[in-house]
């Protein structure tokens, strides 16, 4: 049986009466790579923020590895599982933000090992060793002692990828990881994500990089107005039968 790591069933979310997600369902199996595309304000980021529990869903069901983290209560509104269940669920995924969100007062190495050491009580030397291996893999080993402010945006984003990986997640979420970067730096970050794809990391990637999405994904989801409008194979991305999708892609590329 293929295990579903994440299941979002009929989730809805609104902010101050403004409906941002409407009855969205999405599930991801182990090893799958799903890209989410769509115009800004379409709910892509909110979808990730709900999946990562940074936002609470109003309605629907959120399941990680078969365990219900949020499910509809009697009045239809979603009820969340216990704090401990939520804490356990958060260990399943890692998140990469558009704005990196590295800790500026920590060196690159400290950014990576601080959570393993202080949160998970891992041995400092072992955490360090693993961090250095990851840094080497992402061509950042010479930056271990640098501070985030001394790095380019692209390097910072790669460090934030390594920081998430150091906690050994089963799913990686990327929220427009290259939107704050110029094209040259973007290439380095996309290369890092492709490296993860090669290792069969399960990923959901919100992106505006269409060529990248086509190249790396197993499935592509087009969102607009809080709804998953279309789900398609990457081969069909530039040649789909959906008029609105073609128009969107035509506009941004």
């Amino acid at each position, binding site marked *: 049986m293929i295990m579903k790591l994440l299941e979002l069933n009929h989730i809805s979310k609104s902010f101050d009466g403004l409906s941002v997600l409407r009855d969205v369902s999405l599930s991801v199996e182990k090893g799958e790579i799903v890209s989410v595309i769509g115009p800004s304000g379409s709910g892509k980021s909110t979808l990730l923020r709900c999946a990562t529990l940074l936002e609470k869903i109003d309605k629907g069901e959120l399941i990680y590895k078969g365990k219900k983290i949020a499910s509809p209560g009697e009045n239809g509104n979603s009820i969340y599982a216990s704090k401990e269940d939520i804490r356990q669920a958060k260990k399943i*995924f890692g998140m990469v933000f558009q704005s990196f*969100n590295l800790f500026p*007062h920590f060196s690159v190495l400290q950014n990576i090992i601080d*959570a393993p050491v202080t949160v998970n009580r891992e041995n400092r030397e072992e955490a360090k060793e693993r961090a250095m291996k990851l840094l080497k893999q992402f061509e950042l080993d010479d930056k271990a002692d640098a501070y985030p402010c001394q790095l380019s945006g692209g390097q910072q984003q790669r460090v934030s990828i390594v920081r*998430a990986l150091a906690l050994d997640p089963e799913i990686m979420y990327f929220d427009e990881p290259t939107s704050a970067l110029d094209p040259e730096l973007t290439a380095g970050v996309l290369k890092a994500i492709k490296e993860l794809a090669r290792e069969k990391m399960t990923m959901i990637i919100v992106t505006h990089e269409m060529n990248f999405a086509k190249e790396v994904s197993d499935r592509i989801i087009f969102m607009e107005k809080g709804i998953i409008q279309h789900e398609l194979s990457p081969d069909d991305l530039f040649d789909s039968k959906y008029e609105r999708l073609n128009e969107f892609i035509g506009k941004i590329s």
Partner: protein
Amino acid sequence: MDIGSIIGQLTDGMVTSILIFLLTLLFSLPLGLLVAFGRMSKNKILSTVMQVYISVLRGTPLMLQLMVVFFGPFYLFGIKITTSYRFVAVIIGFVLNYAAYFAEIYRGGIESISRGQYEAADLLGYSKTQTFIRIIFPQVVKRILPATTNEIITLVKDTSLAFVIAVSEMFTQAKAIAAAQASMVPFIVAAVFYYVFNLLVAFGMNRVEKAFSYYD
């Protein structure tokens, strides 16, 4: 009377001034952080109480506050005021007053840290307490250093207000000697004392700022 003996007579006062300064910092810096937490609390009652506290303590003269703390127990509850309470009253008054100012400095610093820092820490598994201690507070300290230095320099000069409830800090003694000797020298010695004290404060704080300058 020569300068040497004037300085000699002022020594006790200097020690008292320095003691007021140190004890005020020791208690008001942590208390200010607690007040800031209360002020930012989601609990409306707590937050309102702290807001009123800050507003009153910043909105009335420190001199008046010292008198309220000193005479209050007698006027309000008929408790006999002892001489040893003078110094305690000074410390209580200063700590309450400075905690209000520090609270607002802390709040400004804490609110200037982006949400992204909290979100990243949350998803890396940090608890709320761990997030504050390891991620947020160190960044807050760096940001609030210049404003804190200002407050500390003001505190050095404010210690002279202890005279209103007859705690003989340095300035009280300087005035007494000046009056007795009909001389400006004690005032000049007092001025040099405060100035040198603040030079040291500025130097020390500058060192601390440098220690935090390893990142932007």
